[in-house]
């Protein structure tokens, strides 16, 4: 069953949240990263959520790549070539 990245049911997402919550609670304190020049307030919450979001994003990004591969194997016309994604692939 392909992961339709757009429509993971809320329950799935919540269980991911729980797993991440448990994982972060049990692991030792993460690295303190120093910011010399970043003058804006990044937001403590924004930092913490990034790891989780990036992990799920990784699944979604991979899912999208495989989904378009499958589409081209099956000969389905890929809707509107996403040129932006490849604009800087020099």
């Amino acid at each position, binding site marked *: 069953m392909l992961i339709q990245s757009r429509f993971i049911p809320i329950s799935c997402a919540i269980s991911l949240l729980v797993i991440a919550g448990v994982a972060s609670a049990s692991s030792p304190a993460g*690295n303190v990263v120093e910011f010399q020049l970043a003058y*804006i307030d990044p937001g403590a*919450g924004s930092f913490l959520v990034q790891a989780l979001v990036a992990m799920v994003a990784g699944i979604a990004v991979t899912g999208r790549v495989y989904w378009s591969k499958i589409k081209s194997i099956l000969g389905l016309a890929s809707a509107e070539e996403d040129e932006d994604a490849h604009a800087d692939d020099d």
Partner: protein
Amino acid sequence: MIDRAIGASFRDPSGFIFEHEGRLYRQVNQRYREDYDQLMNSGLYETLTSKGLLVAHREVDPPGAASPDHYKTLQPDPIPFISYPYEWSFSQLKDAALLTLRLQKLALRHDMFLKDATAYNIQFHRGRPIMIDTLSFERYEDGTPWVGYRQFCQHFLAPLALMCKRDVRLSAMLRTHLDGIPLDLATSLLPARAWLSRALWMHLRLHARYQRNFEGAGAVGKEGEGEAPKARSLSRAALGNLIEDLRATIKGLQWKPAGTEWAEYYSGDSYEDDSLAHKQDLVRQHVKSIAPKSVWDLGANTGVYSRIAAEEGACVNAFDVDPACVERNYREVRKEKEESILPLLLDLVNPSPAIGWAHAERSNLAERANADLVLALALIHHIAISNNVPLHNVAAYFARLAEHLVIEFVPKSDPKVMTLLATREDVFPHYDREGFEAAFAQHFEILKSDPIRNSERTLYLLRRRADS
């Protein structure tokens, strides 16, 4: 010295923008030295400027006395007109967002990243978005989470989601929220169907929840649970996935420019073909005779007359109050790769005010006026009748904007005005040609006036009085 900085350029300790004898400069401070050197030497500056993604600059000697902080002085290529995110259409904001992510992706290849992700770092130049904050690039160390993630979500993702999933007019919230729309507010305004998107749910809703739980005062923990959470490290690959996910999400947000009041203006029967052609002819003649470098087209709709002015060599700001018109105009600019037209959102009876600290971070519209010629076609009746602004006041305001004015007087006998007056008291005794000419004569002299063939309207070419 920071007190020489102009506008909003006082927050970043890496440097600031200032003006000297009418020219714009950027001071680079000592603390930014290594990052600046890496930007220039790693090839990133070269890559970005050659692709037209970053404003180019020259290194110059500091004009006047340099402060002890000073490392270098740059003279950036000037942008002719500064516009703000609350003046942009949906696709303009979307393209600005995509540019920001593209910059981040390219920066990472050179071991740099964006230390902020504010929409005010982007301007429109020659028809496309461009980055103006050269000092936004910082050296990247593997493992660093993205400092700009919160700002990106607030400046770009939240307003775009609100515009396409709730109401396109919500971009106006960017005027009251200088640092982008707070995520909890955006979350409360988005409809339930927005949360069917896993990406929006995570980047906005989940993000807002984490903000609430971990941001200082909100995190009322139990006694002894006071340890502040430390920033987790984020691998380069994970950061890359985050950026790519944001890119695909933004790309997937769509808005159709239709269903607004003015979207179908030209397809209605407000004009006979004959009068349209005559009016276009007259406008072209006037533009040719003035030969303006820069034109403001007020109430530009989808830019028919803006394009006439552009064809005659002018740079044109095409203003309209209707988001669908601005959007269509911009899509046309993008599709035809036009370089002389900048479509912008503007409500002339409530134009962009000065906002920010000391009312001076983002300037009001009239302060940015740089036009040689203003076009006010099929507009006066909306201001004077629909909005009850006396003709004298309209003339006074237009006189602040430019030296020349091409304006179309639309009398009460015109079907459009008859419609406006059909459902209200006619409290406009002086709204006729004589009254119009008298009101405008206080600020302008009439160079030419021509009745438009097959209509009741008159087209005027006016020049501001020297004493105005």
